[in-house]
Each structure stands twice: as C-alpha cells, then as structure tokens.
C-alpha cells in the first residue's frame, strides 16, 4: 500500500493546558490531533497518579498530532511556546501514513 512520510508529535502536558495547546496547534495549521488520557507518571516534579484525584490542578494528557514534515517546525514552535514554562514532554517520531492528502 502506498504510504507517505509524516511526523508523529506526542506532547505530554497538564490537562489544564490542553485547550491552550490545541489552540496553538490549530494556529500552526495542523489538520488534526487526538487526546489520550495519562494515568500517572514520574518526572522531575515527582510522581503522581490519577486515581481518586479531585483536584482540577493535576493530571496529564497526551496530545498526539500527525502532521506533514513541512509543518513540523511551525508546530513545534507553537507547541513549545505553550509548553515552555510548564511541565511536559515533546517527542517527535518519523512515521508513514496512508491518505497523505489529509495531513
């Protein structure tokens, strides 16, 4: 099957920042993204878990965005402006997609 080169960007970020990040992604012209839940994790700011959480201030999500390689730089700039001061991880992988016209 015919596939095309693309980039998969995975941004792990606090839930409270989700809307700000996705707005920034829209601004950078990406055509789509998906949000996945994160149950818990560990990083420089310690360990946390979602179980029984009632505070709106905690909890992470993962925003996955598959995009055309040409749009990657704009996307990273936009995302980084949001993530910069906040906890979170940005990770980019090469990937192949079908239906390239979508990205």
């Amino acid at each position: 099957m015919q596939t095309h080169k693309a980039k998969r960007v995975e941004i792990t970020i606090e839930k409270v920042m989700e809307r700000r990040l996705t707005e920034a992604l829209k601004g950078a012209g990406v055509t789509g993204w998906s949000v996945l839940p994160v149950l818990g994790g560990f990083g420089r700011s310690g360990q946390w878990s979602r179980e029984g959480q009632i505070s709106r201030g905690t909890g992470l999500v993962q925003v996955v965005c598959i995009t055309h390689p040409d749009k990657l730089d704009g996307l990273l700039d936009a995302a980084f402006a949001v993530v910069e001061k906040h906890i979170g991880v940005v990770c980019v992988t090469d990937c192949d997609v079908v239906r390239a016209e979508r990205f």
Partner: protein
Amino acid sequence: MLQLAADNLLSPIVLSFVLGLGAALARSDLSVPEAVAKGMSIYLLFAIGFKGGVSVSDHGIDVTLGATLVAGILLSFALPLVAFGMLRALSGMSRTDAAAVAGHYGSISIVTFVAASSVLSDAGIASEGYMVAVAAAMEAPAILSALWLISRGQGSADMGSDLWREILLNGSIVLLLGAFAIGAITGQDGLDKIASFIVNPFQGVLCLFLLDMGLIAGRGLREAGVLDRGAIGFGILMPLAGASAGLAAGLLLGLSTGGVMLLMVLSASASYIAVPAAMRVAVPQANPSIYLTLSLAITFPFNLTVGIPLYLAVAQTLTGG
C-alpha cells in the same frame, strides 16, 4: 466541648477519612476511581447547593445576605495577605511558592463546608441557607491576591485572557450556584421530589467521599518531605487565624450560630480545586506538591477533626446559641 470533639472524631464521616488516610499511609492499593470521585463530588455540590437554595426560599432573603457576601469576598481577598506574611515568617519557601499557597488559604474547601453543614444538621443547629452562595463567592478573589503578591516580587504570573472566564465559570462554582438557584426556585416542592436522593443518602455518600479524601491526604503525607517544619506549622495555625477572622466577621454581621460557624469554616479552609488549577496555568513555576500537600494533607484533616468541633464550640459560646 470535649464530648462534641469526641462525637465528631467518632462519627462515620471522620472515621471514613481516617480509614482512607491509614490505608494510604500503609500503602494499600485501595483506591476510588477518578470518575467515581468526580461523580460523588458532583452529587455533593448539587445537594448542598440545592438545600441552601430551598432554605433561602423558605426563610426569604435575609437582610444580611448582601453584607455577608461582601464580607466573604473581602475575607477571600485579605486572608492571602495574612497567609503570605505568616509563611514568609515561618517557612523558608520561595516568594512564589508562598504566594501560591496564600491564594489557597483565602479561597475555600467545599468539602470542609459540606462536612461542617452535616455536623450542624446532626446537632439540629440552623444556619443561613445563603452561606452556600457565600462559599461560591469566596472561591475566586483570593486568586487575584495571590497573583498580585507574585507580580509584586520578581516573579511573573501569566494571566491569559481566558483564565478569568475559566476561574469564574469553573465547574464547581457553576454547579453550586446553579443548584442553589434551582433550590431557590423550586423550593420545598422541588425538595420533596428529590429529597430521597439529595437528603437521605447524603451522609453516606459523604463517608465514601471522605474515604477518598483520606486516601489522597495519605498519599500526600507520604510526600510531606517537601514541607519544612514552618510550613507544617502554618498549615495548622493559618486555619485558626482564618477562623478568627471569620468569627469576627460573623459576629459583626449578626449571623446565627450556625452561620458564624460556617463562615469560620470557610475562612479556615483551603482550596484544592479551583485555586490549584488557576495556579498551574498562571504560575507554573510554583511547586504544586507544596500547596496541594499543605491544603489536602495538613489543613483539611486538621479542620475535619479538630477545627469543625472547635469552631462550633466557639460560635456557640460567643453567640449564646
């Protein structure tokens, strides 16, 4: 007074909290699913708001309603300044962290309020129904004070244009005030229809919710290493300072015994819902472990076990109620 304290400590709701606390400290895997905890919190907010509204519709709007709202807002603005001063004196934490913590103590903990209401209704002591609205009004002003404290220092707070809408329309405020309005509109008739949902099982749901709060507080305590000794002292002294301010305001306003006690509870309690979310957005450099641990693992248990009966005894003595 001792009897009251013992009664409170040995009530199912406090013991449920203690059970959760113990389980978390012993590192049991007991846990309440996030969705269930959120569901119970929706239930509690809806029920407490609704009952407050019904009580307002029963007794009419008290002349002191407006004054109490204003007093609540002023307390919410002012208490962070007190807290900030205390923290800078007692603890070695950074200016930014101290300001973020201070914001939490100006705002309120709705579960502490709910637990106090349930102690009042057990004891058959009436209170002003509109205290629910006062609780909602006290959630946000403290955030402004915290941000002002931060911006006065070298730190910077990032108030995106959307943050205010988010704070003022956060789910718990909207639900509390909305249910209050529904209760006020539908009155006793409305309550009759849903009393067997929002009145009868209330204390039981509160038990399970406090079980979960205990689990969270216990997990927090295991990380209490982020707090220095001064910070821990603050977590116990500040509620007493807040309660004193609330007491003064309540007596000045001429509230009922129950009303004075609830205003003390609101002033003494620290937010763990609205304020942490705002701080994460606006002041990401402040360490969330510090303010969440203080609010959930020190002050909440203190208020639940010692504070509530103490505030009630003081309010009873000073109002002659």
